[in-house]
């Protein structure tokens, strides 16, 4: 179950036996991947909510987080959790820099302009990583002893449980932050109406930076989790998860925080069911098909997005 970049492979997708345990297994695998997509989708949605901008480089922040953690762990004997926080930190700092350099000077221009700038940033970061770290896959330097539990014919690794739990924890923290802290409320106010927020004494620029900081840190965390799950880190690893997470954000409703979470989980499950029952060669196409259908049928998304 390796996810190989643009999936250069020749799987013919042998028809799988229709068994209940297989269905459960696919749903479970899907929830694990989906919780990670949801974390990236949160970054898209928060940034879209506040700037009306699709941050194309979100997948590259995911990649940066994974690389920072993997490199730190391979060169220094540090605690895993320290390395995890370090990876999130690197992604966060990169996200804030990105906003400063590539987006802030262009604020207020035609929406096309920051969009192309984001594409430029994405390709810049991706090819920079390729130059610095080479195209080869890197395995995760720390091996975990995760037990595989067998319940009703379904095998659950405790790694999957850990990823799911960690993702849920981060989402819960984000929801609490947005709802109950002063900064969180200020972000929501800025997203609703920048001018009014400014009149209320909110430093809009700082809130935008903070949004990029949080969104990027979450994407970084997602990258680290996937680097552990698939045991691989490479420069183009962010491309497909970025695309899928965007589809998840649209599915849930762009600009809607709970929507991103629901969208991510549904997308992860749909993708794994598609791979299991249709053809694994086209697993990566499922997210895209969902995106097109949502845009055709319900562009607001399941939970309703905010238009900008």
């Amino acid at each position, binding site marked *: 179950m390796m996810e190989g970049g*643009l*999936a*250069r*492979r*020749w799987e013919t997708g042998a028809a799988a036996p229709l068994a209940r345990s297989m269905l459960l297994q696919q749903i479970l695998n899907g929830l694990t991947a989906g919780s990670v997509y949801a974390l990236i989708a949160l970054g898209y949605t928060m940034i879209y909510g506040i700037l009306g901008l*699709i941050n*194309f480089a979100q997948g590259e922040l995911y990649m940066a987080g994974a690389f920072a953690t993997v490199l730190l762990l391979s060169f220094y004997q540090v605690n895993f959790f320290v390395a995890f926080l370090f990876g999130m930190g690197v992604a966060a700092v990169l996200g804030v820099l990105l906003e400063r*350099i*590539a987006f*802030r*000077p*262009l*604020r*207020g*221009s*035609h*929406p*096309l*302009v*920051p*969009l*192309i*700038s984001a*594409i*430029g*940033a*994405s*390709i*810049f*970061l*991706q*090819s*920079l990583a*390729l*130059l610095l770290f080479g195209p080869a896959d890197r395995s995760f330097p720390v091996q975990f002893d995760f037990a595989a539990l067998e319940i009703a014919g379904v095998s659950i690794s405790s790694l999957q449980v850990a990823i799911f739990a960690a993702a849920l924890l981060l989402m819960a923290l984000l929801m609490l932050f947005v709802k109950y802290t002063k900064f969180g409320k200020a972000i929501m106010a800025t997203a609703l109406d920048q001018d009014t927020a400014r009149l209320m004494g909110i430093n809009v620029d700082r809130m935008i930076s903070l949004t990029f900081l949080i969104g990027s840190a979450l994407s970084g965390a997602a990258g680290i989790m996937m680097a552990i799950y698939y045991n691989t880190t490479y420069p183009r690893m962010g*491309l*497909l998860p970025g*695309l899928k997470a*965007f*589809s998840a954000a*649209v599915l849930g409703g*762009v600009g809607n925080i709970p929507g991103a979470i629901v969208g991510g989980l549904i997308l992860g499950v749909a993708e794994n069911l598609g791979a299991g029952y249709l053809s694994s*060669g*086209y697993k*990566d*196409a499922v*997210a*895209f098909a969902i*995106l*097109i259908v949502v*845009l*055709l049928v319900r*562009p607001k998304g399941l939970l309703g997005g905010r*238009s*900008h």
Partner: protein
Amino acid sequence: MTEYLLHISIISGLYIILALSLNLIIGYCGQVSLGHAAFYGLGAYTSALTAIHWQLPFVLSLPLAAVLAALFGLGLGIPTLRLKDDYLAIVTLGFGVIVDLILLNLEITGGPDGLTRIPPPSLLGLDFRSKVWYSLLVAAAVLLIVGLLYRLVHSRHGRALKAIRDHEMTARVMGINTAAYKIAIFTLAAGLAGLAGSLYAHYITFINPESFGLHTSILILTMVVLGGMGSLLGSVVGAAVLTILPEMFRRFADYQDVAYGAMLIALLIWRPQGLLGVGSISQKFSLGRGKAKKEG
């Protein structure tokens, strides 16, 4: 040496068609397509497959390639361009990934190895295996397309498109069907990219999915931004410059993508109108700077 120069000019010509067609989308729909290379690839594969399996002559396989690419453009444009948000970039990016997956997985497309022995065009009894004749063919296509687009931009429809570009809401109030225009332009652009693909396949005679990936889409985008968004002449210059420069700096090939990424951002910040952008579009694209300064 002459052979080499002719080769460069043929490739430049193909990129000029691609850049012009992407510029239609950017300059007149205010949207970005990141799947332009996928339309290019669809055209190349359609043309190659029909020529190999059905022995279809070039005069038929070329328009067929353009029409098929255009149909895919229509299919993508309808769900995305009706919406005002800039979803097109990500939908076309996804489309590019899917086309790549399909080309890699289907048996008929030859998977990662692609197709070989694509026949050169037979037209008017001329020998298109010669680079001289092929470069003339490409030049004729470029001139035809530039002429066509020039006429389009300066027609009644061109004025409608400019109105949409400059202020969509006002255009709609004036009774212009903005969604229909955008979808039509996107379809036309996809068709032109398919046409370029057909010309490429019959020139190079072997194709594989690598030539039609995201890298190529980004390259075309950089050409458009460098030349000037919304400027036809700019796209011609941008495409020529970015085809010739990498040939001169072969040693730095590894740094190409990093340079393109940095170039896109730098251009948008310091020269959003590109090398040759003029008139209202440059004012419009540079508008942001003045405003940002006021705020900052």
